[in-house]
């Protein structure tokens, strides 16, 4: 039950984040808004890190540098999401975003790219993606 509540709040916060970024972008540049929210997020995370000190710093050296700079993707993600929300609203944006997210994860998992465990996708995964696309079409009918 507690897990379900955490997952529920996480989802609410992810959407809220997109909405807040879109709102802030009405008053300043979208890149500027992305910089501000990520800077405060970074500072808070850093403070928490100083208290919990999880993981060793040596760990970073064992990670492929490509993965270490993955966070930079946050910039184009926020920019695209905010622009999409301003154009087509929150519901359509999140719907399309989730479809692309699941679909690419599905491609990566079935091909074992980036060293992920290769998974065989079966019929339910195709039906699931098909249903999601159908849902977006219904919204726009």
């Amino acid at each position: 039950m507690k897990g379900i509540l955490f997952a529920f709040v996480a989802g609410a916060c992810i959407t809220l984040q997109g909405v807040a970024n879109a709102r802030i972008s009405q008053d300043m540049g979208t890149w500027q808004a992305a910089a501000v929210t990520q800077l405060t997020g970074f500072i808070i995370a850093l403070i928490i890190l100083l208290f919990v000190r999880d993981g060793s710093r040596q760990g970073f050296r064992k990670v492929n540098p490509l993965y270490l700079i993955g966070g930079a993707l946050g910039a184009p993600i926020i920019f695209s999401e905010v622009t999409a929300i301003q154009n087509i609203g929150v519901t359509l944006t999140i719907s399309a975003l989730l479809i692309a997210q699941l679909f690419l994860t599905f491609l990566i998992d079935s091909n074992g790219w980036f060293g992920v465990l290769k998974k065989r996708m079966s019929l339910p995964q195709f039906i699931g993606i098909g249903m999601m696309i159908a849902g977006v079409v219904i919204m726009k009918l």
Partner: protein
Amino acid sequence: MLAGLILALFAGSLVSLQNIFNNRVNERTGSWSTTTLVLGMGFIASFGMSLAVEGKGTFAFHNMQPWYWISGLIGVGVVICLVQATKLLGATFAISIVMTSQLGFALLFDSMGWIGLEKVPFTLNQLIGVFVIVGGILVFKLGGKQEQQETASH
């Protein structure tokens, strides 16, 4: 309309990539080390883009309301909740609920026009669409076996 959809699809693809990259970092360090690094990188990239696009405007804060500064807190809340939910429920079940909740709140924010975004009128089609998408997420995540074919080759 089309431009908005394409941007949303682009964002979703990048989220998928970022999740995989972050997991790779997480395996070797910890969730707060990872979060700090990810947000730091995101800040540097956004700041750089802002400098390139807005120039000196990057440092213009006259339209800034105080709560903008604390909006970054939301992202930290996301990490705390995601880590706990995944620990308690396992990734598949947790992500199914997270995505369902994301969509539900998206519809709520659109219909209510909270936080000062333009209100998108609620329609029955939107509600049905959300239910069908959630059904799709559940079928995708929980339906059948996503068998592991082989052990990782890295």
